[in-house]
């Protein structure tokens, strides 16, 4: 076993330096705080990117699976998409249930115009949106069309009652659709300081979580233009650094512990039964402010349809109603005993207006259903608070998912 020899020189240094303290420059703490901020932001961004990639990946997998597993014999799809773009005369075969529809299959049938069966042709029914449904699952069906008559497809042969023109009119979409959605938001505040404490309050508060869930009602004004409105419920949670709050005389003359946040202020209850005196302090830790809003948006959007995909951009306004505002905190007394408290947050406007810009990428997964990848940016037009140390203008950027049901 190795022995730790104690040399006189060693002892001299140990005795003189073990309890010695040296003061680093003041800038070190600022550097550490900045480095931590950068790291936390990087972590948050990485987490968000990972979640976004996961959501996009899952959406992609869902879309691919949906595409691969499409049973063409049940839903033939929009036959007009199979017709050649030059409107030349030709034919197309709707495969039977046993045959998978592929682009090659469509090409082959167009070029070769095969007639699979001359007799016992199956029934064909139109089923909304220009799609056809096969009622039988056995026979492939060949459809012919004449030049420049893409909307008129005669059956090649078959029973007399079916040997007529089958109208391939585009299906009539309803004008109204609904869209439930969820957005994860990256929120922040723009500030205007009203007094000298404002900057300090800004520094010690950071938004930790923000999300919106809601339903949009879409009204198609035309093929491209939409009007969107609905109802959304937003939740925002901010973390406030621990601090000592000192008792001050309030406006009504009472002495109270006022905790300021970027969005408002709360009055902390004294942890002891004694009436607080001016200058008394309480220590708060684990402080979070919770803001909940109900919003009604009104958005004008423009849609770019691309077969099953469509992109949509829009801009509009939101009317926001404050639903709830509370502060959750742990108050420590002089003995460091913890007292948990949920306190109302004062100084917030009951309503405010904001602007919204949004973009959607949508994929049709059924006759009536679309899955949407959403992004939005919201900013309030005025401060959300009154009589506060600072005026706060919240903004947020959200990404999320939604589903659209077309009536």
């Amino acid at each position, binding site marked *: 076993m*190795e022995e*730790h020899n104690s*040399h006189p*020189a*060693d002892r*001299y*240094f*140990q005795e*003189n*330096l*073990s*309890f*010695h*303290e*040296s*003061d*680093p*420059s003041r800038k*070190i*703490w600022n*550097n*550490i*705080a900045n*480095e*931590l901020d950068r*790291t*936390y932001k990087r972590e948050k961004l990485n987490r968000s990117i990972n979640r976004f990639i996961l959501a996009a990946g899952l959406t992609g997998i869902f879309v691919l699976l949906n595409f691969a597993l499409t049973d063409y014999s049940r839903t033939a799809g929009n036959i007009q998409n199979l017709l050649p773009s030059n409107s030349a005369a030709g034919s197309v075969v709707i495969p039977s249930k046993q045959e998978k529809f592929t682009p090659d299959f469509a090409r082959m049938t167009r070029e070769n115009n095969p007639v699979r069966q001359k007799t016992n042709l199956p029934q064909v029914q139109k089923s909304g949106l220009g799609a056809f449904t096969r009622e039988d699952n056995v026979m492939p069906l060949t459809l012919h069309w004449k030049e420049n008559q893409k909307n008129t497809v005669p059956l090649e042969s078959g029973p007399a009652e079916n040997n007529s023109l089958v109208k391939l009119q585009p299906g009539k979409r309803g004008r109204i659709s609904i869209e439930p959605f969820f957005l994860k938001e990256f929120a922040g505040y723009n500030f205007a300081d009203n007094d000298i404490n404002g900057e300090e309050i800004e*520094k*010690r508060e950071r938004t930790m979580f923000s999300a919106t869930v809601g339903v949009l009602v879409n009204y198609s004004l035309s093929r491209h233009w939409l009007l969107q409105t609905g109802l959304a419920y937003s939740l925002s949670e901010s*973390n406030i*650094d*621990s*601090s000592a709050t000192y008792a001050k005389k309030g406006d009504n003359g009472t002495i109270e512990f006022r905790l300021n946040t970027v969005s408002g202020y709360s009055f902390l209850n004294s942890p002891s039964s004694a009436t607080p005196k001016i200058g008394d302090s309480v220590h708060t*830790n*684990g402080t979070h402010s919770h803001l909940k809003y109900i919003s009604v948006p009104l958005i004008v959007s423009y849609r770019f349809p691309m077969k099953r995909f469509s992109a949509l951009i829009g801009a509009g306004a939101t009317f926001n109603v404050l639903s709830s505002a509370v502060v959750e905190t742990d108050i*420590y007394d002089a003995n*460091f005993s913890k007292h948990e408290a949920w306190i109302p947050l004062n100084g917030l406007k009951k309503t405010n207006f904001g602007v919204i810009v949004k973009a959607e990428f949508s994929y049709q997964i059924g006759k009536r259903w679309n899955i949407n990848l959403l992004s939005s940016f919201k900013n309030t037009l005025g401060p959300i608070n009154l009589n506060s140390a600072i005026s706060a203008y919240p903004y947020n950027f959200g990404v999320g998912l939604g589903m659209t049901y077309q009536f």
Partner: protein
Amino acid sequence: MEIKESDISKAELQRLINGCIARDRGSQKELYSLYSGTLFTLCLRYAKSREEAEEILQDGFVRVFLHIHQFKHAGSFEGWMRRIFINCSLQRFRENERRCRVLPLMEEYQMPADMAMSNRIFEKDLIRVIQSLPPAYRMVFNLYVMEGFKHREIAVLLNISVGTSKSNLFDARNILKGYLMRELKIAK
């Protein structure tokens, strides 16, 4: 080397640790204020200059705050932090060594001129004389004398042989002893 944890109650330290885990900036600042003095002395001993010590201090505290949730309450909190700062110092030593491998020679060692002129030894002078040691000597001296590591542990940490560790310590002691003798003579 328990310095601070006796000064503050366990409950208060726990509150600070919890606050730091929750990334509360106020708690982080309090913890920094509480330990920065002691840990900066540690950094000064391992660094060759005040500037380098401040860089180690900064790196160390950032690591502490980013990994504080990994503290298992198995030993003292200060001990856990000291280990992080020693690792930061070792990492910097290895980086410097890779960049420019300096072979310490006794003949090349020069005592800081202003120190030799002083007639009283201050703690900050002791730190400066440690700082002026060749890097390999400084690391071995700090790890063995100030932190209580054994030679075989130092050999693993610094990737040297046990013999080199012992030899470096011997040389470091001689330099420091020479400095102390000279200072005492001047004082007499």
